[in-house]
């Protein structure tokens, strides 16, 4: 399936983004495919939910709207619609607008700021530094059919997103909105997308499969993110973690952020595209509030694990949820001045976010 389908617009006139250069691994992601792991279907979804929400809020979308997740290097996309409003949030990158007229030099635009582009203009996002992931959201969203309730791509399984795969040059990505009404552009100052040096974990579910010395090693050591890391798992190199007796268990479920330790004693943190079940013992699990930050780490980055209790983990999740709910209120006009219209828009967005959260909890 993943090799077969081309991604095309419904009609030549339909609003779209044309992929000039795809970037090495650009996929459509939202909050993930919840409720189907019992059929072996991975959750997927954005590695950095904070950056995804920021990109979406800047263009006026609900925070979980599917957007392009960029890894390492951004795409070049040409606007094939009357106008499109876009915003990028994530690792620091050079973002340029290219006019159809190639004689005009590219114009740099800031991250975390919405921009309205016209037909024929292109957006080029360079290499990412700091965080290795970033999100490009478009106002109104991408017009991709949901699969089992989500537009997230699981490339390994060929599921979801656009044709179940990462973007390729020549793809034409359909958009929902054919034009973006003029308004003042928004920016989100001081959004913290830092890369952590320590990540908090709750021990278990199988910490009893490790020797005391093994658990001590895990909590004391500094690990290095390896190049074998992908959306499925972050493979770490560092001191070997000793099992108590053996490293094969009868397969059981895998939570997001679970840290499995196979026979070589090197931990793997399981991320969004993780398999639904697995047969290696899991020494600990990264707390949900620290997963977005963890996912930003680049190969070569180092990190340590800090043990916390469950109450601390839940408090951290609550704090992150509160921060994300407050994000829309921090949107300000990009020009720097006070702009009533933008302020009103931001307030509408806040209302929308609060309503959505209420729905979610019902």
């Amino acid at each position, binding site marked *: 399936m993943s090799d077969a389908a081309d991604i095309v617009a419904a009609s030549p006139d339909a609003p779209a983004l044309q992929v000039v250069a795809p970037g090495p691994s650009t996929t459509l992601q939202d909050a993930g495919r919840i409720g189907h792991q019992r059929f072996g279907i991975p959750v997927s979804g954005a590695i950095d939910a904070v950056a995804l929400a920021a990109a979406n809020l800047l263009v006026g979308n609900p925070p979980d709207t599917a957007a392009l997740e960029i890894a390492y290097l951004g795409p070049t996309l040409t606007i094939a619609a009357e106008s499109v409003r876009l915003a990028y949030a994530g690792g620091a990158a050079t973002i340029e607008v290219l006019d159809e007229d190639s004689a005009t030099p590219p114009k740099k635009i800031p991250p975390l700021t919405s921009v309205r582009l016209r037909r024929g203009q292109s957006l080029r996002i360079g290499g990412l530094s700091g965080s290795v992931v970033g999100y490009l959201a478009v106002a109104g969203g991408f017009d991709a059919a949901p699969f089992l309730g989500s537009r997230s791509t699981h490339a390994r399984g060929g599921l979801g997103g656009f044709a179940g795969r990462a973007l390729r040059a020549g793809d034409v990505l359909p958009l929902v909105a054919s034009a973006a009404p003029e308004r003042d552009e928004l920016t989100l100052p001081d959004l913290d997308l830092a890369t952590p040096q320590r990540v908090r974990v709750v021990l278990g579910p199988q910490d009893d499969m490790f020797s005391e010395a093994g658990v001590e090693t895990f909590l004391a050591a500094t690990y290095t993110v390896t190049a074998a890391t992908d959306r499925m798992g972050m493979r770490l190199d560092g001191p070997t973690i000793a099992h108590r007796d053996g490293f094969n268990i009868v397969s*059981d*479920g895998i939570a*997001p952020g679970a840290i499995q330790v196979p026979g070589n004693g090197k931990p793997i943190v399981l991320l969004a595209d993780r398999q639904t079940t697995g047969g290696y013992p899991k020494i600990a699990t990264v707390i949900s509030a620290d997963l977005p930050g963890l996912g930003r780490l680049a190969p070569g980055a180092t990190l340590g694990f800090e043990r916390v209790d469950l109450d601390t983990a839940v408090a951290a999740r609550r704090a992150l949820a509160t921060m994300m709910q407050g994000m829309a209120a921090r949107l300000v006009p990009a020009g720097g001045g006070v702009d009533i219209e933008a302020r009103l828009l931001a307030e509408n967005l806040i209302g929308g976010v609060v309503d959505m959260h209420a729905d979610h909890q019902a």
Partner: protein
Amino acid sequence: MSNATRDPPRPRILTSGDTALVVEFGSAIDRGVSALVLALTERLEGAALPGVTELVPTFRSLMVHYDPLVIAPADLAARLEAMAAGLDAVERPGRLWRLPACYDPAVAPDIDDVAAATGLTPDEIAACHSAETYHVYMLGYLPGFPYMGDTPEPLRLPRRTDPRVKVPGGSIAIATAMTAVYAIESPGGWNLIGRTPVRVWDLRRESPALLAAGDKVRFDPVPLAAFESLAARAAEGTLVITPEPAPGDAA
């Protein structure tokens, strides 16, 4: 948690971060343990606890995914402990799927190796394997991939020492006490002893996975010509398989 008394079995409730709890009934692949996992799954589906987002039954445990801002972990653990009490370790009948199965060497690349290892002829392997009614313990590894058991004793072999890069979709495969049908073409190290034309994973269906944990599966041997004809229908999407009530099922 103390070592459980034998009757009734007391599960261990394990923490997996702040968004999942594991209710673990045992550490081995066991039909009684599987029955407990599936009975708790059913009980929880009926209860529809607010904050519980997803239930994932596996061989020996049930993973309960939840939102800790809706239900506190300690509260959920207490509910799970209460609901896990008094469960019946007796296996339910489940839906019975009858899958056409071709054991012809043309679609069973390892059947000669299995014959050499077991001392059985390919026909005897087919007869032995298709005599069993298999229990679907769980789905995992890949979308729609069923772990089924128990493979009859004479056919229990280790995985191949040299895994394949590509196993065709529909391959019927055995390793240790497990039988599987490869849902889609994928890498794999199990012994391939046949092929079913039925797509156990088909994106054209509203629910792409054919099987669910707790289902029963029988393999009905068909000759190669019939397999090819059925496979052609499966490719068109006109091979529709529906489950039968299992023996003893009141429905």
